[in-house]
């Protein structure tokens, strides 16, 4: 067996599969340096296998919350409690967790980068390759499989610059699958997508949910939550949590007014 130099402490799948919650936030507070708090007293848990929508107006702190859950930002600590404010798979959060995937907004990606769909998806495997090792047959097989799942097999050798918005989104979901991530954090995946593309992303997340993945999607578009079945749990956010519940409970004029007005 080949010895590998992983980038980070490697966590075994069995341990993660047995966790009840994918994410637990304990009275989380966050402020960017020198600014008023972006998030205050955020308190909720997401069970494994749940699909959650983070709904809120622009600037409500949705992206910040996703980045905190991804470990890309550190919560602003309060001296009162020593307990970790974020737990991922019931363990205190690490910056690098090989089993969570954060999908940045499409506007944050350089789409002119000279790279193919297949190469991008292969980057998901890097988490399990570590330094100095190259993808082997198993990795190649995994890539074939996930490309099939997201329906990009025919476009595997295409440049990412040639993709439509929906295809770009699916490429990054495929990368998260290749990474074997069990928690997918999708930042505004529906931005600038037409209705059929939104539909196909929603169907894809449903499929992933049936395979035990936990999915958290941020969106500011009420339409996609109202019309579709983006998630069975909706968290309405505007710096703090306004409401948590099923779409029927949260997506109501009187509740939404508290966040959007």
């Amino acid at each position: 067996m080949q010895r590998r130099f992983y980038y980070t402490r490697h966590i075994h799948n069995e341990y993660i599969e047995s966790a009840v919650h994918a994410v637990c936030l304990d009275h989380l507070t966050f402020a960017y340096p020198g600014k008023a708090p972006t998030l205050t007293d955020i308190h909720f848990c997401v069970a494994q296998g749940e699909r959650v929508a983070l709904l809120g107006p622009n600037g409500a702190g949705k992206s910040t919350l996703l980045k905190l859950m991804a470990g890309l930002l550190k919560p602003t600590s309060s001296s009162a409690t020593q307990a970790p404010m974020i737990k991922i798979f019931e363990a205190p959060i690490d910056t690098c967790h090989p089993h969570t995937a954060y999908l940045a907004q499409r506007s944050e990606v350089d789409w002119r980068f000279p790279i193919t769909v297949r190469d991008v998806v292969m980057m998901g495997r890097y988490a399990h390759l570590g330094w100095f090792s190259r993808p082997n047959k198993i990795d190649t097989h995994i890539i074939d499989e996930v490309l099939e799942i997201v329906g990009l097999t025919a476009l595997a050798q295409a440049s990412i610059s040639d993709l439509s918005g929906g295809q770009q989104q699916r490429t990054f979901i495929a990368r998260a699958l290749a990474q074997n991530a069990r928690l997918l954090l999708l930042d505004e995946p529906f931005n600038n997508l037409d209705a059929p593309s939104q539909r196909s992303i929603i169907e894809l997340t449903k499929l992933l949910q049936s395979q035990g993945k936990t999915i958290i999607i941020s969106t500011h578009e009420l339409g996609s939550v109202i019309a579709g079945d983006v998630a069975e749990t909706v968290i309405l956010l505007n710096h703090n949590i306004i409401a948590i519940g099923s779409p029927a409970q949260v997506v109501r004029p009187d509740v939404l007014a508290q966040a959007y007005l």
Partner: protein
Amino acid sequence: MSILEPLTLVFMQRGLAAGMLVAVACGLLGCFVVLRGMEYIGDAIAHSVFPGVVISYAIGSSLLLGGLVAGLATALLISVLNRGDKLKDSTTIGVVFTGALALGVLLMSVLRGSTRDLSHFLFGNILGVNDSDLIFTGILALVVFVCVILFYKELTLSSFDPTHARKIGIPVNSLRTGLLILLTLTIVAGAQSVGVLLVTALLITPAATASLLSRRLPRMIGIASGLAVSSVFIGLYASYFFDVSSGAAIVLVVTIYFLIVWLFVSKRY
């Protein structure tokens, strides 16, 4: 005059060998520099190599070594000043490289009268390459080549998507510092052949040309290195037969490549 005549001359052989080694390194690294938008920092390092050269000239040590120390110090200083995200990259770079350039000019005015060799360093003196310079350049090029191959995977990922790279535990900041060090090595080696003022062109222009021609990174790197190597060859030949500055001739060849490719590509769309 025979077309093969330059190849029989020892100083031309050395110049060609040194220039081609530098060109390969420039083609390799230039692609990452262009893709990461680090062109400005490359230019900054090139300029900050200057005071190091002046100091080593004054104390009589190797110009390449002095340039290397100054360039590395600048690269590290920029990466330290950028920690904490208080300032934009381009701001700290602007501050550091103008300061370094001023320091070089100041030191040069102290050493007035003995600046002839320094102009070689500013504008290149590829035909003045001696054996120890050639060995030094060869080692630098080899280090760059080996590092890019060993860390190709991580360099590509952290250039394309630093967030994902951080997420899976790749030390993005250390990689960036490492890339800056390689960049400095290449710039110092390139300063000998085309000079510190023109070396940025050898780094950026072939990579920019290649990015117009290919949408696969490995191919882009191959094209960039090929263009850089051939421009050293053509530029050096031109400077031999027409008796013009070799550094300028090399840079003009890459610039012409770029313009031709740009015209060709923009006609297609």
